[in-house]
């Protein structure tokens, strides 16, 4: 089985995130980069399927040179090879551009399954998996908390607000995962040493056959016009219950337009 996993490097989850004053994009230098947490679950699920069914796992990432650390981590967890799309012209790409780039890399690479995290912790759009599936013209199985492969079909449990749905599709297919799905492994000493020797294909946008006009900040469909720091937390309102607590609470909620 051939599996691809798309992973994104994001600023450390616990670090304070800042936007750049010059072009209003995320300041990726300001914090340590880590693998998007949900993408660790995607890698883990791919490794489990590989353990059960054999095959090969390729990591795909689009991001600055530093994202190479995240590629290494995925390889040290056990993936076999990686493709790293790195190019200054990608800076500021939105979800459409990201999905265009990832889909182009995936096209012609012949995959049975493409795994994604269901959301990144920095931009949190939660749309890239669906967009990539649409561009590839394959089924999208999103928010998976369980994945089973049987012959040529893949079955997932798709998490909803009320429980889960069972969704089946023929492969090739795109699957995005939620954190309930597994417990990602920590890279082992042997995995870390082995990763040094695994092939990483570094591509520029030209190498990947991408059209510059669809990439980068200039091509983004959204424009950040202005931004401001989050205001400091204001002191809350304490409703003291003197027999009329319920009424006071309702009045407060009404002034806040909750009811």
């Amino acid at each position, binding site marked *: 089985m051939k599996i691809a996993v798309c992973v994104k490097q994001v600023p450390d989850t616990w670090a304070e995130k800042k936007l750049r004053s010059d072009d209003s994009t995320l300041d990726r230098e300001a914090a340590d980069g880590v693998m998007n947490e949900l993408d660790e679950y995607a890698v883990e699920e791919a490794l489990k399927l590989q353990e059960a069914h054999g095959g090969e796992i390729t990591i795909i990432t689009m991001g600055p040179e530093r994202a190479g650390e995240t590629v290494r981590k995925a390889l040290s967890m056990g993936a076999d090879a990686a493709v790293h799309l790195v190019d200054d012209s990608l800076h500021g790409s939105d979800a459409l551009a990201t999905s265009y780039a990832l889909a182009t890399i995936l096209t012609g690479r012949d995959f049975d399954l493409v795994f994604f995290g269901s959301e990144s912790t920095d931009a949190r759009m939660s749309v890239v998996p669906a967009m990539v599936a649409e561009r590839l013209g394959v089924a999208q199985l999103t928010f998976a908390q369980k994945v089973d492969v049987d012959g040529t079909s893949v079955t997932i449990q798709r998490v909803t607000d009320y429980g889960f749905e069972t969704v089946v599709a023929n492969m090739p297919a795109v699957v995005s995962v939620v954190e309930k799905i597994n417990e990602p492994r*920590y*890279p*082992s000493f042997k995995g870390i040493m082995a990763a040094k020797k695994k092939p990483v294909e570094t591509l520029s946008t030209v190498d990947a056959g991408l059209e510059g006009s669809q990439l980068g900040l200039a091509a983004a469909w959204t424009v950040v016009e202005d931004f401001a720091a989050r205001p400091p937390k204001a002191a809350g309102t304490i409703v003291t219950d003197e027999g009329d607590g319920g009424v006071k609470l309702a009045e407060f909620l009404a002034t806040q337009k909750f009811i």
Partner: protein
Amino acid sequence: MLFTSEHDQFRQSVRQLVEGEINQKADEWEDAGIFPAHELFPKLAAIGALGLEYDPEYGGGGADHSFTVVLAEELGRADVGGVPMAIAVQTGMATPALARYGSDELKREYLAPTLTGELVCSIGVSEPGAGSDVAGIRTKARRDGDDWIINGRKMWITNGTQADWICMLVRTDGDSGYQGMSMIIVPTDSAGFSIGRKIKKMGNNSSDTAELVLDDVRVPVRNTIGEPGQGFQMQMSQFQDERLWISYMAVSGARRAIDRTKEYLQVREAFGKPLLANQYLQYKLAELVAEIDILQGFLHHTAARYVAGENVTRAATVAKLKSGRLSREVADACVQFHGGMGYAEEMWVARYFRDCRLGSIGGGADEVMLRIITMMEDMGKPQ
């Protein structure tokens, strides 16, 4: 010592494991007076933390000693001293002699399953009647055909209530002195082997420490590590690993304790300003940080020499002495500067104070280190 990006990645893995698998459960294990070694050790094995330096043929990592430094430093930063000590016993104190001098058969039977975490082991040197003076041990193995028959007691044995086998130093010939000791693997399910008692301690409570009783325990002679009669020498070489491990853990633990104390003093206010703004406290901490820097530099230098194949017995002795003493000083300052909170069980400080006190006793007391240095300095044998 040069740490590469591979060292950094491995450090990250160990740190995550310590946070997720040890710190989360530390309180529970401290209260229970034991931690489940058979559950935890396979998780350590999965990241390659057991037997980093040993032969891959038996499940080791084939790494050089620099990765052990990373592992020990990260374990030393845990919220609890007992569990890291138990891990250190498994991979750095009870197994070096087996890995270096054991037969292929013994290594397959005992080392390999220990490195997967399936088996738990202990190092059995100390006795009720002899700790500092290792040559004074009295547990005896008498030869009977192809078996040893062992009688005696072992004391203070870490992992002692849950170990599957003990790397045991026993007397096989003669009544006293350095000669005539052997190192024998004693399976704990042998007839005549029993746990005398689990010892209640002042610290390292998550680690079980036991007194062991051997009453006509029959063990095959092929369970002898290396040659009979070479036990003392093998243990002295094993002590070197033990002392380095203890030092790496102590210094990184002290560093973390200072960092956490700084954080607290930044938040805690007295006399209208954060405590940390107080020059007396700043200088005290700066002085301790300077000591930590020196010792860590010395340890990294020593580790690099070890990797290069040099004899580091003296450096391991010096480091053990100084790191034990320094962590006591650091712990005392941390308790003091936390005030009442330093004395309460609600915070990490009191536990750290108790746990790190062992550093100057276990693995050879400070005075035993001084004795070794004295003899190396040709001042004659201390009386």
